[in-house]
């Protein structure tokens, strides 16, 4: 059984092949040799101990969303990765470039303290549009694209959760 994966982190893309044959596990990274690896899940399943390239590494891994987002820590260095199997990666690629989304969404739960724009207003990319307060800190969220504000689904004083749309902008690249 052979699986191909595309992994992305820090603007780097890597390919990996995982092959299993009975008790043996083989891995190939970025077109290198397909080599047998010794590894084992440790620390109650929170980490993998892996011997690779002649060295032993302890890598903490957790699946952030159950859907290909993986958080890893190696030697104190946290890394966020996305993992896709090759088929999915190809499918996404064939969709072509996606237009930049005009929806500004909450990234952490908080309280909407100030809305700086109104529906119909023309905004420029980077312009502050809304202020959300969390943990005694006011976070100014900026327009992700230039365009016209078409909807503001929240009002000042609302509690919001990650992913909640706050300001929706119809992108107009020429603005």
């Amino acid at each position, binding site marked *: 059984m052979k*699986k191909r*994966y595309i*992994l992305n982190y820090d603007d*780097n893309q*890597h390919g*990996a*092949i*995982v092959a*299993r044959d*009975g*008790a*043996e*596990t083989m*891995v190939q*990274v*970025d077109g*290198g040799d397909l080599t047998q*690896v*010794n*590894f*084992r*899940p440790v*620390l*109650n*399943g*929170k980490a*993998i101990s*892996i011997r*690779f*390239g*002649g*060295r032993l*590494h302890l*890598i*903490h*891994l*957790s*699946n*952030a969303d*159950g859907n290909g987002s*993986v*958080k*890893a*820590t*190696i*030697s*104190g*260095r*946290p*890394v966020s*990765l996305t*993992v896709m199997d090759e088929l999915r990666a190809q499918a996404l690629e064939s969709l072509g470039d996606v237009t930049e989304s005009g929806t500004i969404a909450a990234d*952490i*739960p*908080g309280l909407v303290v100030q809305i700086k724009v109104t529906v119909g207003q023309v905004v420029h990319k980077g312009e502050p549009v809304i202020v959300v307060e*969390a*943990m*005694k*800190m006011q*976070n100014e969220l900026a327009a992700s694209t230039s365009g016209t504000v078409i909807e503001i689904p929240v009002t000042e004083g609302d509690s919001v959760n990650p992913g909640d749309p706050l300001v929706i902008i119809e992108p107009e690249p020429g603005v």
Partner: protein
Amino acid sequence: MATSKTNRKFDKVLVANRGEIAVRIIQGLKEMGLGTVAVYSEADRTALHVLMADEAVFIGESPATESYLVADRILAAAAETAAGAIHPGYGFLAENGPFSRQVEEAGLIFIGPTAESMEVMGDKLASRRKMRSSGIPVVPGTDEAVTDPEVAVGIAEKIGYPVLLKASAGGGGKGMRIVRESGEMASALRQTMGEARSAFGNDAIFVEKYIEDPKHIEVQVLGDGLGNVIHVFERECSVQRRHQKVIEESPSPSLTPELRMRICEAAVQTAEAIDYRGAGTVEFILAPDGEFYFLEMNTRLQVEHPVTEMVTGTDLVHAMVKIALGEGICYRQEDLRQQGWALEFRLYAEDPGKNFAPSIGRIESMTVPQGPGVRLDTGVYEGYDVPIHYDPMLAKLIVWGEDRQQAIARSRRVLREFTLHGPGHNLPFHLWALEQPSFLDGSYTTHFVENEFDPADWLPKLDDGQAEALVAATALFEALRRSGVKAGTEGRDCSPRNWRLNALRSMTGNK
């Protein structure tokens, strides 16, 4: 002010705080055989301090203004549980004079200073005048409001440029402006007054000498409230972001033995001037020329108190409780000495690469390093949801070594072993700091982060072997997880336990 030794007994203490400091205080109280009462808000029902206390009382909704800051709720909780004393921790009501008065009026003991001490030290100008009259060095300048540029130029020429124009009602870095020569004075004064008027409704401006490249040195003191004060040496806290400390150490790498003696003596004098009771911290600015100036006194237990405990072998929570019990100061000055070196790293749920913006979420996994010289004061645990309502500090990692070099080497080891998945955090920031030449040679100032930190290039680098191993491990992790799901588990259950079982099954034979 002198309290008799007979009526200050208690056997149960309410801790009017949350997070790691509430946990730390509860631990200290338990060690002394005292009963412990926690208070909690809606968001803190399953917080660690609540789980650890003997009793816990619900005091209100999640915002601190409806719970931890409501004096009446805290007093009602104390009455309900028959607690005899209240420890305020830091923040919230810790330096609130009226609250401590209310506590004492309710017949309870406030484990901290008197309201009078808090009020003198809480007012920047009053404390400045008090210190000046007590012979403590304060930053040269004037205590009188200035509106006339010519008067301001006169003062600036006397104390020497650069000077700082400061709104008397200001705070948090607002309403301040540096003036480097007389030509800039008129417009700078006009602008600062305008800013002060609109921000604080008060345009009183003071002129102070601007200390370039300052270091933040503070001295721990203990007083019995009867005029006896000792110091427990200094801490240096110059690594700051947004005027908030991130790394602290003791001893300070910036003091000679002679300077250390003088600054500690000044701190003792400061506390003596107000017959200070309990644990307090006197903060100083240290200028590059070795002159130091009184900044302010914090009339509470400080966040960074553990570095002092690690190098002096003291327990400041025990000491505070004993003072509150009327037993006086449990250490003698001549017995105290600094042994070795301690560093404290504040663990914040924040993203250093995004201007240190706070982050929240569930602590998915946490591996806490151990070994010699390691202490973790924490308010969180695996599975805990970090709430949005409070300060994003999760824990403090304190590392001790025989000397500064060993403490730094050990800190690197410990920070590399420490793993936290869930909210973004600043553990790698600390690893970054420990590689900076100005930190390593001790010359860093309070401008360290703004001068040295590049948000685009600060994460520790992975070498090629690590990067390859990471890709291989992640691919394996994903392959195992997916095969686990396919193996007939319901829905998208991919909990680590499940994953592990599948992994172990499929990996039999691996060493």
